[in-house]
């Protein structure tokens, strides 16, 4: 299925939940959806007989700056061999995105990583703990406004 047909299908099914579709002029065609509808869209993408996106290649948390955080999902279908990128954006003061761990199990650790490094809270995640940084680490290092703390647990950070 081409990205064109796919986005048409999503638009007819979800209507206003789809904010933006971009197919031409980008390297990976993407669909931008409202975070509130993300889980429905994810289930649809996985379970629809024509789509069958059963493989979550990558999930990235991003700080776009200017008070916007985002999550980007790169999906692939093992049986149909097609790809699509799904993007959501949330404001930095309420960075809540529904978890898709139920849909793709591989999202579990990816979401923990995005929570740890970018500070996106995935609602409904079964086990949202920090994964790479220590449990008591202050802040989220991949935020653009992150400053390396001078001291960590009373120890001087050596640079």
């Amino acid at each position, binding site marked *: 299925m081409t990205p064109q047909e796919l986005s048409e299908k999503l638009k007819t099914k979800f209507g206003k939940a789809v904010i933006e579709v971009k197919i031409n002029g980008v390297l990976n065609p993407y669909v931008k959806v409202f975070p509130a509808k993300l889980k429905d869209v994810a289930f649809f993408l996985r379970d629809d007989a024509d789509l069958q996106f059963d493989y979550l290649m*990558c999930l*990235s948390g991003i700080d776009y700056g200017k008070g916007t955080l985002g999550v980007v999902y790169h999906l692939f279908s093992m049986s149909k061999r097609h790809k699509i990128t799904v993007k959501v954006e949330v404001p930095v003061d309420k960075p809540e995105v529904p978890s898709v761990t139920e849909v793709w*199990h*591989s999202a579990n650790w990816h979401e923990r990583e995005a929570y740890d490094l970018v500070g996106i809270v995935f609602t409904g995640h079964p086990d949202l703990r920090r994964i790479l*940084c220590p449990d008591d680490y202050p802040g989220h*290092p*991949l935020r653009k406004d992150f400053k390396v703390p001078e001291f960590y647990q009373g120890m001087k950070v050596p640079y």
Partner: protein
Amino acid sequence: MPETLTAPLKTSTGRLLRTEEMVINMGPQHPSTHGVLRLELVVEGEIVVDVIPHIGYLHRCFEKHAEHMTNYQQVIPYCDRMDYLASMNMDWGYALAVEKLLGLQVPERVEYIRVIMGELQRIASHLIALGTYGLDVGAFTPFLFCFRDREGILDLFETTCGARLLYNYIWVGGVSHDLPPGFVEKAKAFCKYFRPNIKELNDLLTYNEIFIKRTANIGVLPADVAIAYGCSGPMLRGSGVNFDLRRDDPYSIYDRFNWEVQVGKGEMGTVGDCWDRYMVRVREMEQSLNIIEQALEQIPTEGDVQSAVPKKIRPPVGDVYVRSESPRGEIGFYIISDGSTSPYRVKARSPAFVNLSVLPEISKGYMIADMIAIVGSVDIVLGEVDR
């Protein structure tokens, strides 16, 4: 009585322990975890009831470093250090992503050099995986044999770029050095020397009765679970899924060579057990030899390997996700460019990180000793898990 003794005991995920259960930490310093990985095991006697992996001991902020470089080429040495057993493939994955952003075509000779290096690296990486796996389950000699053969590959790398482990060899648009005189002959001689050694390894370890008893029917990973957890590489193919990015999402020039994707067939037990994952790696080494031999025959003799290396890398605004097949599976780089000379965001999707997340799923109900066989069969490199 202090309160800590009366409070109910919990795991770090908040699971309450029953009276019969006990928590044992395997790692961070444990020889079978291949680095600093801590597994929190909930055991009932010898039976593993639950596993909670704790990672991050080797976290070096690759992604933060990448954002703070002054240009795109400077990120490559950090890619080297992600998967330090397969640095060539890491560099290659990153270079592919930046080249896609730039719309850059690399010269023919460079493509061949990259394929040869990438496949040699795959053999070297698999040799470590297989050798240490034997060591994990109690066979010492194959480990020495594997390291002996890996030396041959490292010598080839050393003659080419001077380094034996962290190469910084594959650059955006080219490679750092052309092949030295006599490389093709030496590489051919290595292939000729190494091919019989695979049979030797099979006789020594693969079909060894004790080894089969330790690995067959252990850590069975069904195909649908493997896909749901995003497993890739030998983990996925060991479960019988016929999928290899080199063939199914082709990049570089892999479509020019004759080779076959190897999958687990459940010869010694169930499809997707530890033995299958092990065997996929053994067979992939043969396939890599086939690719290398064909590439050495076809490689153009002339050509400047740095003719396409850009003086200044300034990709247009945009983002790209590019994936390629490393020895451990799908290494993907998601790069966002804001039009400046350094990346706005680099996310590395490392195969071992995703493969390791399936560990709790495949190890419940086995013995503690089997845990070691299962962790070994996942073939993790903590440098890449933690980045």
